């Protein structure tokens, strides 16, 4: 059963069409990769799905719920969380505070002005930091962390929203080989443990084929192929426009 259904989604920026008539189904519990050369429209597609941008035409359905034109926070409440290509955390806050405030939001108590937040969700936050291997950095400011650590922290922040569907935009971008390797393991574990559906973009083909159970290829804003990794790998169009250029 599809958890996410994208129907004929189009986004124009003036005359430029960033995403053109994309129709796509993401099966529940799949780990679905969107690949494509730079400028193919991957990030725009992510922004459309997650509510950061609204589509020119087309629709996004999450389970039987229509998402397009909802605000990001409404989409998060529906059960979707995301990370960003460039690290996007609360850089002046400690790693612990980052996860803690995410948990506050997730618990829906962000209007509670009486409950002291000092040690609120302490255990859960530390648990999540442990999960993404940042427990030693809990009390350091996010901006002081190494880039790879920040990306992992952002994963923890996204997971704090207790999503069913997780969107990761280039989860290993900017990481060293070792960090990439460890992140791949981390993502695999998390997805399996928590029963998540994963939709991610990635430029590193090793990562893609390591994780993905399905792949869609985006080129000039259009899906040119979609299916199991082996099928996509063999697809002539994909070879021509994408892999061929590598």
């Amino acid at each position, binding site marked *: 059963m599809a958890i996410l259904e994208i129907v004929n989604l189009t986004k124009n920026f003036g005359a430029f069409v960033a995403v053109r008539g994309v129709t796509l189904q993401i099966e529940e519990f799949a780990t679905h990769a969107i690949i494509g050369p730079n400028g193919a429209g991957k990030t725009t597609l992510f922004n459309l799905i*997650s509510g*950061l941008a609204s589509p020119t035409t087309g629709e996004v359905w999450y389970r039987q719920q229509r998402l397009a034109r909802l*605000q*990001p*926070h*409404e989409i*998060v*409440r529906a059960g979707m*969380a*995301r990370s960003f290509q460039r690290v*996007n*955390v*609360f*850089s*002046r*806050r*400690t790693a612990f*505070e980052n996860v*803690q*405030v*995410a948990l*506050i*939001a*997730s618990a*829906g*108590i*962000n*209007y*509670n*002005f*009486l*409950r*002291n*937040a*000092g040690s*609120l969700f302490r255990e859960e936050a530390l648990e999540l930091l442990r999960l993404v291997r940042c427990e030693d950095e809990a*009390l350091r400011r996010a901006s002081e962390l190494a880039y790879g650590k920040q990306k992992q922290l952002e994963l923890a*922040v*996204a997971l*704090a*929203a207790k999503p069913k569907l997780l969107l990761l935009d280039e989860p290993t971008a900017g990481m060293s080989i070792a960090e990439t390797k460890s992140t791949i393991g981390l993502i695999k574990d998390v997805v399996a443990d928590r029963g998540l559906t994963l939709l991610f973009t990635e430029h590193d083909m090793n990562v893609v084929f390591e994780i993905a159970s399905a792949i869609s290829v985006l080129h000039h804003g259009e899906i040119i192929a979609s299916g199991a990794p082996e099928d996509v790998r063999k697809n002539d169009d994909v070879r021509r426009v994408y892999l061929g250029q590598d």
Partner: protein
Amino acid sequence: MTSRPQLIFLLAVFAVLAVVPFLGARYPVELATQVMIFSLFALSLNVLAGQTGNLSFGHAAFLSIGGYACAYFLTRLGWPLAVSMAGAVIMSAAAALIIGALCVRLNAIYFSMLTLAFSMLVWAVATKWRSITGGDDGFVGVDVPIYLTNPYSFFWFTLAVCALSVVALWILSASAMGHALVAIRENPTRASFLGMNVKRMRLAAFVIAGAFAGLAGCLLAMYVRGMYPQTAFWTQSGQVIIMVLLGGIHSFIGPIIGAAVLYLLEVITEQYTEYWSFVMGLILLAIVMAFPEGLVGIFSKLRAPRRS
């Protein structure tokens, strides 16, 4: 926003204030009353500036709305003190709800400009709505309850109101909501992807800020025994911005320090030179240039977790 050193500082401030009436002179009592009122005003702005990252250029609007409402309720309607104050707070909160609903949709400078426009509108209405506000002559003569006419009792009353407000705002600042608001200040996009309704949170902060500004306005109207359109003019909003920025937006006590320092400096310089504005400008300039991180930086160190 909150931390143990700041809590100690606040307790010390209130301890010192509690001693002021026993110094045997009345002037320090008057001055302390004035400083407390403006500190409360600055503190209210920081709910917005410090906690959601929106710098309002029109916060004085709520000071004046609270002040006029309080003056009107006490004097024209003859309501009891508690009812009048509650009414004034509700009025300014309601105004903040309406104005805020239109302003929080906007970002950064656009937010600032719309708040500025609204406050000048409030100023213009206060100048023109003679039957309620007294027009440009102002609302002269506020009927303060007889038990508050003595400056010492008014001092204690102001101290009590400010202390309760500080406690309330401290609890807010340390609360789940306070943390969420700080998150919004630092990164609204990320905050919305945590599932927070950023606009509504901002609106909540706007209303809280407006309500406490209204409370400060009510105290001001009672203290001055009048309310005047100039209170809503942009220069008053500018002054409170200076107070808050001078003290630092990243800490709870910053605005209190900023308000006290700026107000006292102004009062003192004014007594010694007719060019007080020049001297104040130079002092402000010196602070901005000599401490590029500002008092902001100095005080935020109090907040940052320390390791010895």
